[in-house]
């Protein structure tokens, strides 16, 4: 058990490509940190640097009190679960789990006891003599977890461990991983591109883009107060609607095409005439407009999911498509014009040029 500190960590490859451009991150003891981002954003590289599989070009990685930059993976007291599990195909489940302990030169009885305890926790007891190829995907996933568990490490590292499972199993394993990590109280770092996994698992969420941590915070804070347009668009599903707008001459409201005006609250103070991007989440548009601003939407596609309905359409006078998410099954048909209410309290403003949030300028990642 230990804290995990990353301090100005950078990774520059031999060819000069900068994969990680300075990340600062602190995880408290027992915290579950999830790194989420699109492919190629450097999230796996960052995890592999913590594991010691990639060299750190600059900055400092600390696990507990130790700076681990120059330590071999085995000396860092970490355990990693790989995306493809990387179980040794010629070894039985037992030997797969025991291999790391064997290499540490632990006594036989201790290895046996630890593997059996991990097997009990993961319901693998009957499978210890099997070879990996005789196991189902979910069982392999458990063995990979077991291999990490028996080492009793200071930090668990997960590299998209659920992406090879089918949807149902993924949800089940997600819950199990969280319960297991809670129960053990071990610090964990988890990489995923799935934002549902990210939101549900994380105590602390890191949204990465282009080798930079765009925002670090509690999942709900990130959802409610995204620091950049990228974060706003990446977290939440369906993703946030963005409309271009300009601040009116009086600086008190926003002018959107289609005669739409949204009053500006006092907290944000962009200067008059400035180009901004307005962000509204699909769940914050509603079908029964009150006295507030309205948006007219000509309905395109409708997705009926049962519990909720997703409506896609084009607002009058706008280039951008708009998505609307409502509970239950509303009375909507394709081609119809819908009057939508827009709650000014749920409107996010972003600088059209830099993408930085104007509504929550204080939050933000370590950019």
């Amino acid at each position: 058990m230990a804290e995990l500190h990353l301090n100005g960590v950078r990774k520059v490859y031999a060819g000069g490509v900068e994969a990680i451009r300075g990340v600062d991150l602190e995880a408290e003891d027992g915290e579950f940190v999830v790194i989420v981002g699109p492919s190629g954003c450097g999230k796996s590289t960052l995890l592999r640097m913590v594991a010691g599989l990639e060299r750190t070009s600059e900055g400092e990685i600390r696990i507990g009190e130790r700076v681990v930059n120059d330590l071999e993976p085995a000396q860092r007291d970490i355990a990693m679960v790989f995306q493809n599990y990387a179980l040794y195909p010629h070894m039985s489940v037992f030997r797969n789990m025991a291999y790391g302990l064997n290499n540490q030169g632990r006594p036989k009885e201790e290895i046996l006891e630890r593997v059996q305890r991990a097997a009990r926790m993961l319901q693998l007891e009957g499978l210890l003599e099997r070879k990996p190829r005789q196991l189902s995907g979910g069982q392999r996933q458990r063995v990979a977890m077991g291999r990490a568990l028996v080492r009793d490490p200071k930090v668990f590292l997960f590299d998209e461990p659920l992406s090879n499972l089918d949807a149902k199993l993924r949800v089940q394993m997600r819950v199990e991983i969280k319960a297991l990590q809670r129960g053990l109280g071990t610090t964990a770092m988890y990489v995923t591109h799935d934002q549902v996994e990210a939101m549900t698992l994380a105590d602390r969420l890191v949204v990465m883009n282009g080798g930079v941590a765009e925002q670090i915070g509690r999942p709900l804070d990130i959802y409610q107060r995204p620091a950049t347009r990228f974060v706003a668009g990446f977290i939440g599903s369906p993703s946030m609607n963005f409309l271009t707008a300009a601040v009116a001459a009086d600086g008190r409201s926003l002018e959107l095409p289609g005669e739409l005006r949204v009053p500006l609250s006092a907290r944000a103070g962009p200067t008059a005439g400035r180009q901004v991007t307005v962000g509204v989440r699909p769940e914050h548009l509603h079908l029964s407009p009150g006295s507030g601003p309205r948006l007219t939407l000509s309905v395109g596609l409708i997705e009926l999911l049962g519990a909720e309905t997703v409506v896609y359409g084009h607002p009058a006078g706008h280039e951008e498509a708009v998505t609307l998410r409502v509970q239950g099954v509303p009375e909507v048909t394709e081609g119809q014009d819908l009057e939508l209410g827009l709650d000014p309290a749920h409107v996010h403003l972003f600088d059209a040029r830099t993408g930085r949030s104007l509504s929550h300028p204080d939050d933000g990642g370590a950019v």
Partner: protein
Amino acid sequence: MVENRRWLNLLTHAVLLLGLAVVALPLWMTFVASTLGPGELINPPIPLLPGSHLLANYGEALSSGMARAGGVPVGTMLFNSLVMALGIAVGKIAISVISAYAIVYFRFPFRMTVFWLIFVTLMLPVEVRIVPTFQVVSSLGMLNSYAGLTIPLIASATATFLFRQFFLTVPDEYLEAARIDGAGPIRFFRDILLPLSRTNMAALFVILFIYGWNQYLWPLIVTTDEHLYTIVMGIKGMVTVSDEEPNWPIVMATSMLAMLPPVAVVIAMQRLFVKGLVDTEK
């Protein structure tokens, strides 16, 4: 391509039987000849059915076959061939698996140069480099020894190349998992890479054993002591006797005996051999 037509079935079977006959007839003739009495083979027509001297001929071949021609018994030559074939097969696999490991998993200066140097030697089989190799072996005093028979044939580009190709297909994640599990280079090699290469090694062993067993020119050159003669050389020696007709039934019996070890190796390792050539166990 799966068609069920009567005449097509007949045709395919006929083709296969013809192929089988082409391959099997010489073997059958060898066997028949090895069971005949001394003069029977020379007089036409050549018999197509086994004779009655089977035990006598094989007994003579094993105990005193070449002795009459002034040489050593077949047993000794079989043993020499076995030592040579095993030495070459095991030696080649051991050397090339290690060099392939070095080339694939370690970053050292001139790594690719080394690889290409090895690769280029693919173009230099034993026969091409036989004179300089003989010079070296002779100055090292290895003539007329098992070392002289095997060592010069052990260096192998082919096997190194094959192992390299196989190692490249082994997912990197195994190496990474092993590193996290605290396995150093030697442990990773021994505990993970070697077991994964098992089928490839078996397939190579079969091929290299037969290659070693069939060596003719090299043993002929480095051995002058008849106690180190190999069976392939021995058969040739039995045919070129002076002043008398070669004793064909004994020669044929010796040939049959010479064929047995490679056949045994193929049969014993057949399952692994096919697996190693066909599927990649990952």
